[in-house]
Structure formats: C-alpha cells, structure tokens
C-alpha cells in the first residue's frame, strides 16, 4: 500500500449505496448532464492584490450561497467518481456536494465530518488540484474540475463559525468518560485528526502541545491571509467539543517523558510532532543578523503576531529588499508575508525553474499578483556582511538543469564563474525542514529513517515501539496538511484495534 491510500474496506460500497438513494436519483434527473456541463466553474472571489498587500486578512473571500449552489450543480454525480480516490481522508465528496445542491448544508457538513474534522482548514490549504480535483470526470469532457475545495470551505465556513459562537455553552462530550487514556503529542493536523477520531471511538484523549497555542504548523506556519485564526480556533474548538483535552505548554520529552505519561495511565501514543527543525544551507555568513529561517520568520509573524508589533511584544524584522530562498509553499508564505510587512522588493530565489517549484499553483499565482519577483536557477553561496554583523547582500551562483536526481527532478548544476552579487537586507531560508528531534531522538528503540523521520508501517502508522504510532511531518518530513490528517485517521483506527486486542 502506498502513502495516503484508502483507509477502510467497504467504503466504496457505502458510497455506492448513498448514490442509489431516491433523492440522489431524483436530483440527477432534475438537471441533465448536458445542462450541467454548460455551467462554468465559479471563480473564487478574492481581495484585489493592491489592497491585500496592505493587510493580513484572508485573500480568498469564499463562495456566496449562490456561487456555491451554481458550483454544486456542475457535479455530475457520476457512477464512477474520480474525486474520492484522490482524497487522503476518503471524504464522500459527491454526497456532500449533492447535499449542497439541495440546500441541506448541515447534512453536507455532517457527511464531511464523518471522515474529516477540519473541513474549513482543508478547504483552504489542501492542494486539491493534485488530489480530488485532479481526477474529476469533468476533465474528460474538457471542462475544469468541480471546485471541491471551495465547496468544502463554503460548507464549513457557513456552519462552523456559527456553531463556534455557541461553543462555550456546549457540554464537552461525556461518552468518553470511561474509555482508555490516549496521549497525542502535538496539536497539528495529524494530532488533531487522530485525537478527534479516537474521541469519537470513546477514548479519553489528551493532546500535549509544546507551544502556548494549539494548531502546530497551522498556528505558527500558515499565515493568516491563508488561514484566519478564528477559523483555526473554531475547528480546534470543535475537536474540543468531542471531548478532547488540549494541554498547552507541555513539552513531552522535557516537561514529562513518554514513560512518565505511561505511568500516568496513558495506554497508547500518537506522535504528531511535526517537522520543526529548520534546514540551513551551511554557507558563509548565514549567521549574520538579517538571515532568518522561514520557521523563525513565520513564527514571529503568525504565532506571536509580530505584524502587530508593538501592540504585541514580539518584533519581526522588516526588510526593504527581501530575498526568500526556496520554491515551496513555505517560501511563498514567507515572501508574501514580507510584501505585507512593507518590503520594497520581495523576491523568490529558487535553484530550479518554475516547472519544478513544489509550491501550489494558487500560491504562485497569488504571489505574482502581489508583485513578488521570481529568480530561477540561482543559489546563494555566501551572505555579505555590512561590516557590523548585519546582512548587506548575497553572492549568487547561476545553475543549469542536469540529469534527474533521486527525486526525479532535474539536478541543478552550478555554472563555474557565474557568481554575482545582489543587495538584500533580509534573507529568509525556506529550503525545507526535518522532523523535530526533541522527543523522537530520546525514545530508545524507536526506528528512524535516514532523514531523522520516524519509520512506520503506512497501513497502520505503527512505529517500532509497541503501542506507539506516528504520522504527519514527523514521518514524512515536509508534506501536506491533508496527508498528515490521513495518517492521523489511519493511526486512530489502528490504535483502536491495538487496544481492543490487548483486552482480549
């Protein structure tokens, strides 16, 4: 079984049964395939670039009710849907879209939440273009795919925020009062998903979070202009409402060891500790003031609200000429943040070309609209000191694409003698991160891979330690929110099996 493949047996049959229900049949008859094919894909309303570069509010504004209905009608409700096989958490996509079409938004949300506790987040940050939307059958008719992500987000926004306003009054679920105790380490997407699935299965789940706010990379990494904090808060409150307890400022491996938790009665563990270790390039001058890891830069802005300094105490460096090194989503987040913090020039410096950039198409598009300059086939070989320990510029070397490397992408080869200088006063290194070693390095017997990642059996997410499971970036290095959630989901099922077998 490959990474991110289907979880449960019998799902396809359940989806088919849903599709055969009378209301679905009637709906299909109501509007012919021909008519459905004539509806254009509804564009996502956006804040105009010249406005949004001056604020940290969300760029995508979300569908209105009318836009969502129109988009839902584009879905053909096909007999052999391609979308569902592309979803790492196996959402019954056609069913939730058809519920939108008939205006039953509560039922649509319920359907999504059967397999996904964080729809408002996934609707925003999932790379739908390479997952569900990639295999949409509309493509065969030469049409753009149904905007599944936009619809998911619409349903979630429409209901979750409203629900969240009543959160205080809602009773924390008491079904789990008698269940076994399970510890989830890390409150990022993998941990939140594992925790909510386990709580639904009747376990008493505690999430231990090292930072002072829950959310992991959703809180410290992803900027507010992609994921507003009240949305994140609402989703986390939903997880809490399932009976999950979240302990912030608790660093497992420091505040208490895994063995301490075992002694405190926790029977099984899920390690969702993320990829918190930033990579640097190890070139001269990298420790000058003015050179930051993307993790530091984004954490200052997102988690600590540095953009609101001095109302918030944590400052964030504001550069005039900003260079972000890297070509992934983190690099896009960093460079777009720099634009919003008032940079005169903000540029991406990437060692391959546009075609090889790992960032999502939408992020690249948004960055371009916001005036970000893209520099390809270059790599910094040295950072230049202004004589007082501050960054003044960098020496870049030009590269050419060579033979494919182990990742299948062409290897960038340095061109000798091609070095040149650029003036920059802020550089952000966004070339990737590896699994956070703080906890996993101290667990003796835990098998790690060559990048320091936790080795697991991808079917169950079981590690080499009995009763200890892992998922998300701790396992994958730097992947996506939704793959982490798929891991959390598979691990929850496996933990349930593990504990049931122990009792027998």
């Amino acid at each position, binding site marked *: 079984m490959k990474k991110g493949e289907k979880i449960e047996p019998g799902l396809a049959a359940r989806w088919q049964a849903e599709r055969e229900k009378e209301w679905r049949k009637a709906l299909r008859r109501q509007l012919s395939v021909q008519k459905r094919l004539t509806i254009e894909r509804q564009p996502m309303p956006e804040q105009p670039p010249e406005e949004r570069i001056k604020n940290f509010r969300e760029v995508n504004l979300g569908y209105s009710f009318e836009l969502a209905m129109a988009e839902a009608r584009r879905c053909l409700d096909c007999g052999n849907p391609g979308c569902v096989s592309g979803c790492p958490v196996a959402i019954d996509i056609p069913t939730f879209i058809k519920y939108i079409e008939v205006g039953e938004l509560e039922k649509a949300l319920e359907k999504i939440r059967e397999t996904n506790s964080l729809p408002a987040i996934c609707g925003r940050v999932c790379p739908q273009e390479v997952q569900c939307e990639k295999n949409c059958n509309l493509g065969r008719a030469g049409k753009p795919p149904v905007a599944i992500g936009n619809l998911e987000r619409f349903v979630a926004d429409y209901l979750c925020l409203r629900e969240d306003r009543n959160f205080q009054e809602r009773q924390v679920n008491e079904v789990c009062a008698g269940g076994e105790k399970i510890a989830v380490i890390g409150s990022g997407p993998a941990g939140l998903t594992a925790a909510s699935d386990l709580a639904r299965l009747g376990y008493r789940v505690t999430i231990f979070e*090292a*930072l*002072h706010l829950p959310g992991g990379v959703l809180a410290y990494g992803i900027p507010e202009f992609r994921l507003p904090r009240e949305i994140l808060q609402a989703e986390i409150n939903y997880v809490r409402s399932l009976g999950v307890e979240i302990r912030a400022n608790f660093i497992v491996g*420091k505040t208490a060891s895994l063995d301490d938790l075992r002694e405190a009665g926790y029977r099984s563990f899920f390690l969702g500790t993320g990829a918190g270790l930033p990579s640097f390039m190890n070139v001269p001058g990298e420790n000058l003031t003015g050179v930051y*890891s993307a993790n*530091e830069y984004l954490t200052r802005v997102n988690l600590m609200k540095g953009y609101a300094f001095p109302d918030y*105490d*944590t400052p964030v460096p504001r550069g005039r000429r900003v260079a972000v090194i890297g070509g992934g989503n983190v690099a896009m987040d960093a460079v777009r943040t720099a634009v919003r913090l008032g940079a005169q020039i903000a540029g991406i410096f990437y060692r391959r070309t546009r075609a090889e950039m790992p960032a999502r198409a939408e992020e690249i598009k948004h960055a371009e609209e916001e005036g970000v300059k893209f520099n390809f086939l270059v790599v910094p070989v040295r950072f230049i000191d202004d004589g007082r320990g501050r960054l003044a510029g960098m020496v870049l070397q030009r590269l050419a694409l060579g033979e494919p490397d182990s990742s299948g992408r062409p290897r960038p080869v340095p061109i000798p003698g091609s070095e040149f200088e650029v003036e920059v006063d802020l550089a952000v290194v966004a070339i990737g991160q590896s699994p956070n070693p703080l906890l996993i390095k101290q667990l003796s017997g835990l098998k790690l891979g060559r990048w320091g990642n936790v080795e697991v059996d991808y079917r169950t997410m079981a590690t080499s330690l009995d009763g200890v499971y892992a998922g998300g970036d701790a396992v994958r290095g730097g992947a996506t929110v939704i793959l982490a959630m798929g891991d959390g989901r598979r691990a929850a099922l496996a933990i349930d099996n593990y504990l049931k077998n122990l009792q027998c």
Partner: protein
Amino acid sequence: MNRVLVSERLVPNVYRLVLEAPEVAVSARAGQFLMVIPDSRGERIPLNVADWDRERGTVEVVFLNLGASTRKLASLREGDLVEGVAGPLGRSPDLPVSGTVLLVGGCYGIGGLYPLARELKERGNRVIFLAEARSPAFLYWVERIKRYSDGFVEFFRQDCLEAGEELGGLMARIKREQAEISAILVIGCSYLLFRISEAGARLGLKTMVNLNPIMVDGTGMCGACRVSVGGRTFFACVDGPWFDGRELDWVEYFDRRKAFLREEEKALARVESEFWIKRGERR
C-alpha cells in the same frame, strides 16, 4: 495560565517570581531554563530556573528587570497570572565527577547558579562561588549560597573602576589558591561570560558559559538562537545553553543579541507608557 505565588524585588533591579507549574517542577534540573510568557500579547522569553519545590509544585525564576517583558513580569503581584510557563528546557551542564568547581554568577545569574551550587555540593564537589554585582547593595542570596560553597568571593564594579583587582587577576588568584579547579560555570551578562571565558582560556580551564541569545520558541524549532562554537552552528535552546566559552564566536554572539535593539526600545517605551498607568489605576 500559571499563578504567581511570590513576587519579590531582591535588589534594586533583580526580581524573583515563584510560579505554580507542578509538572515543570517535577522535571526541573539545575542549569535549565523556562520559557515564560508574561501576558496574552507577550513574548516568549527564556529565564534560568533558580529553584523549584516538587511538593508544592512551584518553580522560581530570578531575572533582571531590563526590557518590556521583564518589566511586565516585575510588576506582577502575588495571585496574578502569567500567560504561560513551559519547560524545563535546555540541557543541564555536564558536571565534573570530582574536584573543585568555580561558579561565577553575575547579576541575575547568581539566582540561576544557586541550584548548581547545591547539586555540586550534594554530589561531593568542592564549590567556590564568585558573585559579581554592581555594588554590595546588588548582592542577594549570599547566605543561601554560602551553605553550599566552600569559598565565597565577591566582586563589585567599583573594584574594576577603582584601583582594585581586575576580574582576570582575581581569577588567576583563585586558580593559584585553589589548585584543584577542574571547570568554571558562568551565568550572567554577556560581557561577564566573555571576560570569564578569556580568563578561562588564559588559565587553561574548561569554561562553560550559560548563553542567553534571543529565542522565540525555545524548543529547537526556529534557529533564532544559533551560535557558532568551534566553527559549527548550534541551537542554544536545545544543544545548549551551556557551551565552552573558549570556543564561542563572541563577535557573532554579541551582534546577534543586538538584532532587535531598536524594537526592544520601542516595546519598552510602549509598556512603560501604557502598562504602568494601568497598574497605577488598579491600585
């Protein structure tokens, strides 16, 4: 949220807080630090663990009232809450199995070194404690520390300014009188760490300094605290904060500590204009 159980001004600019944090108290060890967040808009700042009480579930910090965050902490009263306490973080230093250890504590570092003096003494080491302060009025915890030291030396700024001994000379004298010294451990301001490291290098003594670079998360996630030791880059929060000061790139260390100097002034100005007024109103 963690409750303040004791808030005390030890000397004119050094404060002590006893905070409720039962899990942290259980795991705290000498030489480690905590991340403390004063309030919901506050920074995460690293403070040395100055003591703990496992039964009562409390930890103590001693800090210099210097910038916006420490101003906020210094103004807390018994019963107030801080936004968060996380830890214990960092590694405790490798302590020599036997022999004499020279502890050098300056300013707030006297508090941070106290648990190390206690641990060393209980392990059977000989402990010489050198306390550095502006003047006798800035010295605190003397009796407490003397209980765990075999020698107690004071060093004041006036000694430096006037005809008195210089730190280097004092160190050499201590080395002569205490032939068995196997290591020096230092907590205090950067300048003290630097000076003692110089002296340690001259005397050929291993000099472990407790670095205090700018940090954000304190758990190895951001790299704000990177330092160069022996030509390699380390994260002070997880690889340190104890390093051999003889091998540190001090120029880089001083530069990086100054990265946000202007912003620090600005934050302090805001806190002083708004925060203290609010405090005044409440009283």
